[in-house]
């Protein structure tokens, strides 16, 4: 037997990137993301403008980004858009917030009780497919012409989506986590809030995002219940007046709010989940 121990050079410090260098690296990454975005949206806008100008459609049907931009600026200037958007946003946040709370509770109950799953659960799958306009008559009937009716429609539009997201997320939790937690003495509320929900969170988050989209769409329908300054009414007025530029300006506003919300709320949550769970460290 021959044991030959050969000494290798002593390990050098290998973290070649001190904190500041790493910061710089991250900044570069962020910059490239920004560059991509700028290029993409510039190209998109130019193509759109081009289509609107040389395309087969008259510009009052297919206004370009310049016309839409003008409408947007005009709407922002005279305060209508700002006011309308803030009214809508408040409704959206209240309605979505209620859906979140209700959805998490209901979704949890559905997983917990098989009997519920086979009854209420089945019903919810059907209810989810109902367009929001179906709820308008009931909203008027039950709440009258007021904010509560509108928020009711928003809740009905997004609640079921959140419920099913939570249910699917929890149902697909690897059972080992639940076992481990119960084993360590977690029960009841703690088991849910500290284990089941976090374990299901990646899937739940997807459901929450869908719920957000549903909430928006329902809000636009709900705001047609009666006229009051809001994005839904601005959109409808634009349509009634065949004002394509205004319609697209409101659409832009919706997209902007949607993207902003996503960047501020959902994207960081997703990043955090990915970082903790180690998702996305391998690209196929």
């Amino acid at each position, binding site marked *: 037997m021959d044991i030959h121990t050969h000494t290798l050079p002593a390990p050098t410090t290998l973290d070649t990137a001190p904190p500041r260098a790493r910061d710089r690296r991250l900044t570069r990454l962020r910059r490239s993301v920004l560059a991509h975005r700028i290029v993409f949206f510039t190209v998109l806008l130019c193509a759109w403008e081009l289509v609107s100008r040389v395309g087969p459609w008259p510009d009052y049907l297919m206004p370009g980004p310049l016309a839409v931009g003008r409408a947007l600026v005009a709407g922002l200037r005279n305060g209508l858009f700002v006011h309308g958007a803030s009214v809508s946003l408040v409704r959206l946040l209240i309605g979505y917030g209620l859906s979140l709370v209700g959805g998490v509770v209901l979704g949890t109950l559905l997983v917990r009780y098989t009997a519920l799953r086979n009854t209420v659960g089945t019903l919810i799958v059907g209810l989810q497919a109902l367009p929001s306009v179906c709820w308008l008559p009931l909203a008027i009937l039950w709440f009258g012409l007021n904010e509560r009716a509108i928020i009711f429609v928003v809740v009905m539009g997004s609640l079921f989506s959140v419920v099913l997201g939570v249910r699917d997320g929890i149902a697909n939790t690897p059972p080992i986590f639940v076992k481990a937690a119960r*084993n360590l003495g977690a029960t009841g509320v703690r088991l849910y809030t500290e284990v089941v929900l*976090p374990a299901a969170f990646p899937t739940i988050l997807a459901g929450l995002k869908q719920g957000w989209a549903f909430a928006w769409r329902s809000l636009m329908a709900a705001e047609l219940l009666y006229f009051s300054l809001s994005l839904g009414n601005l959109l409808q007025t634009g349509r009634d007046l065949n004002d394509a530029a205004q319609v697209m300006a409101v659409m832009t506003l919706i997209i902007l709010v949607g993207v902003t919300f996503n960047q501020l709320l959902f994207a960081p949550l997703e990043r955090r989940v990915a970082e*903790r769970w*180690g998702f996305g460290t391998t690209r196929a």
Partner: protein
Amino acid sequence: MSTGRALHLRGVQKTYVSGDRTVDALAPTDLDVEPGEFVCLLGASGCGKSTLLQLVAGLEPATSGTITVDDTPVEGPSSDRVLLFQDAALFPWLTVEDNVAFGLKHSTRPVDDQRQVARDWIARVHLRGFEGAYVHQLSGGMRQRVALARALATDPSMLLMDEPFGALDALTRDRLHEELESLWAATRKTVLFVTHNVREAVALGDRVLVFSPRPGRIVADVRVTLPRPRALEDVAVMQQAADLMKVLRRALDATTDDSRIEA
């Protein structure tokens, strides 16, 4: 410090049914464990050792038979009987420190205290510096050690350990053996310890149970009376391990077929 508890199994049996598959994992088993006893379990892969531990932990219901701990039937899990899972089962959304502190939260200790206990345990499994790491950033052996720290931190009176040192190098394993043995000596917890390392079983156990292949039955119950502390390299330990190996071989060779499954 908590004291051990007596464990009694009578005709405990487990059959898994899922879809159209039925697997007899554990044959009807009788077993009595004294308070504070350190019992090691040896047996072929798939013979039902993990299953037995899950039943005792109350995480799976037995198909038939009764399990009592301190004369109370086991009906569900309890933080007083902690199972160390074979595959660590750490929470990926928590840091190492939060994982270890998890089982402490239901105690009435102040939070600062809990943190301190968690950090102490992390140090005892030689993972200082990784308090803030997430599970996917750990190596296999590091995960096992975190799981060990998480289970021990709760100070249960019964420890159910499923191959806790399977992925550890000899040296780390030696150190943790020492830790475990001194902990056990001080607290006299009742321990069920699954291992595939016969020497480890002899070095740690008061008793070694040998299981037949699936469906598992206890075919040998060997008492180890060597003086403690024992080391893996002790001649006496090696000797008894060699003898035990023969028992094990006899038990395992009896059944060479692997197919007690009904489709």
